[in-house]
């Protein structure tokens, strides 16, 4: 056992192993971060700081403090005047700061900005709070039909470029899979200064409630099969771009960690599994990882990283169109009706 080397590097950080807690409600509190660290997470990506949310909070506070005021002589206002409000990023920044003091593992900030000034301003604050690295959560859902893909891409690149110019700590970019040519975009992200790419963002996909006729914003946790998409892309990108790759979405057991590593990821990030079964699950996964590596006579994580990337597999077309055709041809009607149900 002691011979096994699980270490990896990610964004220039040396990590004890590749299992990282990705942005999730588990990092809302110091206790949560401590639990993740105690459970053995190699690093913690903080929950995302949303600039829009900060603005919304500020506006909501303003609105409700003003609403109904100065209308009626007996009640010129309805709330006591507070000395200070803890609005916006302070709580987030203080949490990073305290977490850095309390846990030995790297803390990676996560930011979703809304305005050009907001991205750089908050990035700088997160750096100052002591974060070891910053993950830019480029979550934007364009719905305007007149906006071109190129414009959206340029907007993304501009954000990364700007942030990169304003902070010194490593920067990873977390994106979704919906680009016309993700490989090209990945390369351009690296060109403008991204140190890492995190694949993929889980886009919010609401459901319909047929009884109430309402759109319901329930978040679906990931399933192991969700690994397929990031796995594919990490395997394709590995060796083609000069940036660390991270897989998030669908990592639920040591098997997905192993697959991620073999595809070429530096780390495998988890959230859904930890939300469902608690941070202690990391310990079990690491144990299973070790057992698997021993059984299969692997010595280190590094040894397997990228081993099944497109560059290194015997049949690179398995990742491309040829494979798609093969998959289609392999389909047979399901006589039992059970497999497709």
């Amino acid at each position, binding site marked *: 056992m002691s011979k096994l080397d699980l270490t990896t590097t990610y964004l220039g950080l040396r990590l004890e192993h590749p299992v990282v807690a990705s942005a999730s409600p588990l990092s809302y509190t110091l206790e949560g971060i401590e639990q993740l660290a105690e459970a053995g997470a190699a690093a913690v990506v903080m929950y995302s700081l949303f600039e829009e949310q900060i603005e919304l909070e500020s506006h909501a506070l303003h609105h*409700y403090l003003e*609403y109904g005021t100065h209308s009626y002589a007996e009640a010129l206002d*309805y709330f006591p005047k507070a000395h200070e409000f803890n609005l916006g990023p302070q709580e987030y920044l203080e949490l990073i700061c305290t977490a850095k003091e309390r846990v030995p593992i790297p803390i990676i900030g996560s930011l979703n900005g809304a305005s050009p000034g907001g991205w750089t301003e908050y990035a700088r604050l997160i750096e100052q709070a002591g974060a070891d690295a910053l993950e830019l959560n480029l979550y934007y859902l364009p719905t305007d039909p007149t906006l071109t893909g190129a414009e959206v891409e340029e907007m993304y690149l501009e954000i990364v470029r700007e942030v990169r110019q304003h902070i010194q700590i490593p920067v990873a970019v977390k994106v979704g899979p919906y680009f016309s040519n993700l490989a090209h975009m990945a390369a351009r992200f690296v060109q403008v200064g991204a140190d890492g790419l995190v694949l993929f963002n889980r886009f919010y996909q609401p459901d319909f409630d047929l009884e109430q006729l309402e759109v319901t914003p329930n978040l679906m946790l990931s399933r192991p099969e969700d690994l397929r998409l990031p796995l594919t892309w990490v395997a394709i990108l590995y060796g083609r771009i000069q940036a660390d790759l991270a897989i998030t979405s669908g990592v639920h057991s040591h098997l997905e960690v192993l697959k991620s590593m073999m595809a070429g990821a530096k780390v495998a990030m988890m959230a859904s599994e930890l939300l469902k079964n608690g941070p202690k699950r990391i310990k079990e996964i690491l144990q299973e990882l070790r057992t698997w590596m021993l059984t299969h006579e692997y010595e280190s994580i590094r040894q397997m990283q990228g081993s099944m990337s497109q560059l290194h597999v015997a049949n690179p077309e398995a990742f491309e169109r040829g494979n798609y055709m093969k998959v289609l041809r392999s389909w047979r009607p399901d006589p039992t009706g059970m497999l497709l149900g």
Partner: protein
Amino acid sequence: MPQIITVDGNEAVARVAHKLNEVIAIYPITPSSPMGEFADQWSASGQTNLWGTVPLVQEMQSEGGAAGAVHGALQTGALTTTFTASQGLLLMIPNMYKIAGELTSTVFHIAARSIAAQGLSIFGDHSDVMATRATGWAMLFAASVQEAQDFALIAQASTLKSRVPFLHVMDGFRTSHEVMKIEALSDDDLRALIDPELIWAHRNRALSPDRPFIRGTAQNPDVYFQARETVNPYYQSVPQIVQDYMNRFAECTGRQYRLFDYVGAPDAERVVVLMGSGSETAHETVAYLLGQGEKVGVLKVRLYRPFDVNAFVQALPQSVRVLAALDRTKEPGSAGEPLYQDVVTAISEAGLVDRVKVIGGRYGLSSKEFTPSMLMALFEEMQKPSPKNHFTLGIIDDVSHTSLPYDPNLSIESPEVKRSVFWGLGSDGTVGANKNSIKIIGEETDFYAQGYFVYDSKKAGARTISHLRFGPRPIRSTYLIQKADFVAVHQLGFFERYNVLEVAQEGAILLINSPYGSAETWENLPYEVQAQIIEKKLKVYAINAYQVAREAGLGNLMNTVMQVCFFALSGVLPRAEAIGKIKEAIRKTYGKRGEAVVRKNFAAVDAALAHLYPLEVPPAPTSLKHLPSIVPPEAPEFVQKVTALMLAGKGDTLPVSALPDDGTYPSGTTQWEKRNIAQEVPVWDPAVCIQCGKCVLVCPHAVIRAKVAPPEAFEQAPDGFLSARAMWKGLEDQRYTLQVAVEDCTGCSLCVEVCPAKNKSQVGRKAINMQPQLPLREQGRKHWAFFQHLPEFPRFDGLSFNNVKNVQLLEPLFEFSGACAGCGETPYLKLLSQLFGDRALIANATGCSSIYGGNLPTTPWSKNREGRGPAWSNSLFEDNAEFGLGMRLTLDKQKQYAQGLLLQLASEIGQDLVDALLTADQSNEAGIAAQRSWVAELKARLKDHTDLKARDLLSLADVLVRKSVWIVGGDGWAYDIGFGGLDHVLASGRNVKLLVLDTEVYSNTGGQSSKATALGAVAKFASGGKTTPKKDLGRIAMSYGYVYVAQVAMGANDAQTVKAFLEAESYDGPALIIAYSQCIAHGIDMAKGMEQQKLAAESGYWPLYRYDPRLRAEGKNPFQLDSKPPRISFQEYALHENRYRMLKQINPKEADHLFKLAQESIWSRWKEYAQMAEAHTATTQGGAGQAASPAELREEL
């Protein structure tokens, strides 16, 4: 250099009081509440007093409680104060006698206010303080904000030295709420007057077990009298002590005051004597008249008690021949008002009776305007050989002919003073921006500045009028602006409702916020307004401030846009400098709320001037629009002659004879006031509607109503009047219609939110949808008129009104109140009025419900076609349960007497009718209708009888029809100030119904914490989040065993609410309903009020239940839990509300702690309730645990 601050009287006084005290007991009452709020906020944020310790601020359950706490704190040696007014001060009187009798140093700071007599008034006069004259307190009257601050210190210094307690009095609203530029007192100023030796002496006199003594003995005829006389030397020394401190104060600050300050000609023959803010106007008037060569003067009374006759006489010029004492109070039946009597006494004792004639009169009651013109009329009267005595100033008294005539158009305002008047809406931020403007001008320029604000009597769509004065010399005009050189009208609609230009002087600037372009704006002004603009040669500018604000992301808050325009047009400051200062003010005011808010306001400021444009005024009016009549011609005579004038803002012109002499006003007058305040109103889509009645139930203003009537009733319907086949079993051949009173709607959209029926092709649309009001107004008016003429659905013919769907067909007898848009209280009152209104008596505790329920000019409790409806009254805040019980006692007694008379007169009346009347089953609508017809028959048979008993019975006959007594109020009443009475009334077993409209704060006075406030909620007086859980009032009531108790939340379960009301009313005993009522003070989107009620119930925070003692007799558990176990967390409910969210933003750690406690408390209470609901009722089967029924109890009594 002294620090210059721009503050109102309340803040000025509270600053000093907070610095000079250790314990502060508080209770909210208008207009003194802000003093307590300031003290609480400052202590909550750790601000220390003069000795470096944070004063302890304690909210009490009533002013009586506050006085008791103050008394105790004083007796144990703390420097202690309180703030109050009006009825609050009256509740302190018993303790005030004790405090004075024990020679205890303290100052109570009073924002003097009218006392409720023929009607309540929140406005200013001296009635309250005058009612305390006999208590033995010194009284020091401040006339301005500066004096209010200064006298707070002088009073404190004087009480410590003299040991006589002081009332420090400023005029409510006129001074307490007037914003003025003043010189602030520094800590050094305070130290210079407060002698530590005296504080130690105060402590040394305190009760202590380390040196025990007894104080507060019971005394007998042998010594009480002598003991009462022991205090005389202390009172004799007070005037000199006060004057000494005034002199020392002058050495520190340069501001010299005297016990009586004379201003005027040294050889004046006519002098007026008065105190409070009116003396500033008198000062200004005298100065003007001196300039005209008149020999007049004013004597300002500072120290009113103890009244120093020598100082008074010496302050008068030797030349005085006529003295007029002006009292801002009324003592009916007296030989004269208090100051007059004191002046008469002083002149008599000084031996000046032959030389000086004294007259007295009243002025300024309830903030009635007191102007130079009135004083000039008085000075003229004083020149007459026999001037009128016991006169009134400022009204037309055509009954007792006391009033002195004056010229309302006469103005002596100095041209060097800039005078601006702003007409705004409460919701548009006009007042807030103007307060900022005064601060900017007051603190950044050499100008003196004054701001006074006039508010509406309605809460929704409220109009505000700001009066701002700036000038190079101190401003003494303590009255509204009479001639403005700048008028801003922030709502175009005001031109149609008010004479907004009356105040504009010739050549004034008029700034209009208009949604239109230049030409359209002009055409949208009524003809009469255009004529005024032309005649007065006004320079008109316009801007679409809403558009600028919206584009900057500020929604409807266009105050900063209008503020920029004001500065730009008025030229008070250079434009660039003004804009810089406005931005500074924005940062200061809103900075704490986040950068985003500041940024958007800055954007609005930057965009404002580009949108401002001058309006071209043609030489003659061109508009096709004319001013509409205030009330429709079909309105009753009283409404035409009296109410309409009040509505037009002309109530001041009503003579005494026009007003009822005993406070009795007609019911149902809101229907005549078409306010048109909603920008959007609901519109019905019959194709989608399922006729469930939920929208009708939740509408806070009773503007959505439903009727079912035969098809022929709709034959004359106007164009576009919608109806649908009625969806009731057995009524399929009838038509259903849902109508909206578009002119009365506030646009809250609660109805749309609660509507469960969605359009199958566009799920975003429902059976009712909001649409712009203006295009619907004309048609809406016609539809509403037709709807009203449709027959009402019969109350006793077929349908049972025991569910929401059927209740919608009952006519509401509570309509179009002035409550806030989306009010959570009023739907319950409306339901009450639908179910029982035609036989209900309502005792209403003072508070929101008494204000929207009874505030003139128009009131919402109405009557049906038969002329029946709720009989409504308000006694006080603290005694409402007892007041209602009194109503029931009358009914019970009279019914008993009438029944006795029936038996005695059976032979004359006829046995059949007597039997019918005595045995009538009035448990349902049919039975009540039958009894009414028998009572009508009884009256007919008794009509011609001359026998005394028969006439007696005739006068009481109506009492034989079942009546319903409802005791209504908020949580401030039920949980705090009125709890003792409420408890007693519940315990009485009498058939009264208590409805608690629980908003969990004192809503009417601006959201102060009550014992109903939830753990973890931020409220005034609980700035750091309330740390104790809400009192379980229902549980307390249930402990009696014979009280019907229900906790309801209409938005969570409307069927349960209806059931609870019906059960409570049908129960022959006391019943208590606690109703969740959302409020602005919760900080929620009011449109989502019902959704929030649902979350409250789902979280277990607000469990729904009913406790019906009748079930016990049936061997059942009387407690029925109507809620399901909690299925969401407390925070999932709470964090929708600013009152909770704010704590997370102020103190996240404390929020986490309190929210955890709140969650635990919910669970533990739920567990207890669940156990109660499951508990077996075996013990109630005739065992010791069985409570007697209220009826049985009454029998025993």
